[in-house]
């Protein structure tokens, strides 16, 4: 029954976190923490969402930027066409991201893992090209966006976005946690360890992979949707930047992918390091740090931070006979 107690602790933690975030938006006047915090929360959402497919199932999605960019441009198109509110933009982005995940999964998930990765690179380029040629959302020239007035109880839009992104991150974490502890998660880990064996023991591998791909895609696109309002500007180069793919992958692996807390820790560590370096060293060394951290962690700490914290941490044995 520890599972039950765990749940109480988890949901208690979530409630405390969200209340703390909301209180912060009401008390703190300096806006910088919200700008920087938004970026870190966004990376938490991305890393956790990525690891649902990449970590649990071992299918490396290089196309995080494709899903992210789709989220951004769904929001832009919808806002420009109908002036839809932020919540609707995010919901629409999630639906489009899920549909895209379904399509990609159907097309590529029968292949060996690495083919899936390459297919996602191709997908990112195809969608970016499409957006570049789509004049309605500005095409390659980009588009400037005027934010609508902010809603109560917030006194600035960035604070509201910070809160919204906190909810998205928490949603991603809750879903990842749920999957990890459910039959789906155990099935995914079984197919990650040995896909053929899993299939033979009756695990519906394709169905599970499709589910993971759809959920992961929906969450990434949803996390990307508020970026349009955050930047008040969208251009294909920034929205489909390869950095999102590499960061999501790096954060998940540095944190460790066996448990949902891994990507969260990875995103906090790497995200805040990047934010910190951006305003301190501010040069090429910035990129160098990401490279060196990646190499050090995958070589020196194969199970990521959670592996370091709990040396005898074991993968949850999935697919037991």
């Amino acid at each position: 029954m520890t599972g039950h107690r765990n749940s109480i602790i988890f949901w208690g933690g979530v409630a405390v976190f969200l209340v703390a975030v909301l209180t912060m938006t009401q008390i703190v006047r300096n806006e910088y923490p919200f700008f920087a915090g938004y970026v870190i929360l966004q990376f938490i959402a991305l890393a956790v969402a990525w690891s649902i497919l990449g970590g649990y199932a071992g299918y490396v999605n290089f196309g995080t930027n494709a899903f992210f960019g789709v989220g951004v441009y769904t929001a832009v198109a919808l806002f420009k066409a109908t002036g839809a509110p932020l919540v609707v933009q995010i919901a629409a982005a999630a639906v489009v991201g899920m549909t895209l995940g379904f399509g990609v999964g159907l097309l590529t998930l029968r292949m060996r893992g690495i083919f899936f990765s390459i297919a996602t690179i191709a997908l990112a380029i195809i969608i970016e090209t499409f957006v570049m040629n789509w004049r309605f959302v500005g095409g390659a020239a980009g588009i400037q966006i005027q934010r609508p007035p902010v809603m109560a109880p917030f006194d600035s839009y960035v604070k509201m976005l910070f809160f919204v992104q906190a909810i998205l991150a928490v949603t991603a974490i809750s879903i990842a946690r749920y999957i990890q502890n459910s039959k789906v998660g155990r099935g995914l880990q079984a197919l990650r360890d040995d896909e053929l064996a899993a299939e033979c023991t009756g695990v519906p591998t394709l169905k599970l992979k499709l589910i993971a791909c759809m959920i992961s895609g929906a969450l990434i696109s949803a996390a990307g949707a508020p970026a349009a309002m955050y930047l008040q500007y969208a251009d294909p180069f920034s929205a489909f930047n390869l950095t999102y793919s590499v960061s999501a992958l790096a954060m998940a692996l540095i944190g460790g992918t066996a448990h949902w807390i891994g990507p969260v820790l990875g995103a906090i560590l790497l995200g805040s390091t990047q934010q910190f370096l951006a305003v301190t060293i501010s040069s090429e060394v910035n990129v160098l740090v990401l490279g060196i951290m990646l190499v050090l962690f995958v070589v020196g700490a194969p199970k990521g931070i959670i592996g370091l914290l709990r040396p005898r941490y074991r993968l949850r044995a999935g697919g037991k006979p």
Partner: protein
Amino acid sequence: MFSIDLLLGAVVLGVLLGCFYAAVSVGLSVSFGLLDVPHVAHPAFLVLASYGVYQLNESYDIDPLLAGLAITPLFFLFGLLAYRTYHETFEKRGSDAAVRGIAFFFGIAFIIEVLIILQFGVDQRSVTATYIGKSWRFGEMRIPIRQLVAFAVALTLTALLAVYLSKTFMGRAIRAVAQDEEALRLMGANPVRIKQYAFGIATAVLGIAGALLIIVAPVEPTLDRAYIGRTFCVVVMAGLGSISGTLIAAIILGVAESIVLTLFGASWAPAISFAMLLGVLAVRPQGLLGR
């Protein structure tokens, strides 16, 4: 706009471009295709080689192709080292080697980018040689000589590599290790050593490919990102590890890009080639000439 003449020109230029793509991808066809190493730092090594060629050309006025040849031993050593590290840290430890291997090579690629920036700055660089900037008249058509050079060198390179892999003892051993490592081990050969050697060769080839890259167009430190998609696309479309397939797939990519650039909206060119890749993956996942 359409005319047979234009179409013909596009095909010719596309074949030349395709052979160049083959040259920059053929190393990956060995390292990724045959050895299963998710070598996403391949294009970063390629750009590094271009800068090596640039340095030799700039300070000693050595012909870029010779400079490329001159740095191949160095890149062979890089290759040995890279594979040894990869093997010790990932392959030995088992299951999720591929996932962490990708992250590892991404890290390496970033480090290479930054080192190039620190050494050479962010400006683009190019080389000089007698055959750059001139063209050869062929009836109504004029073909850039640098493209012809790239074409000839690329063909030679792929042919040599194909012959090496099929005719020599070491080459056959490399193919064997790709197909059945265990059998080779039982025969008393050391598969790790053979793979290491093969990876060395795959990286050494980049010396020449890097020379071609900087002959065809100027290079800048982050150019590798543009080639991740292209090189992997060629290798996968070819069917992993097939050298002749690499050449064919690269030519198809080159011709498709060239035709779209000439006759349709140029802005759709990248999407077309990658849509082709997705198509091949969906219909024939083992590639055009899969093993």
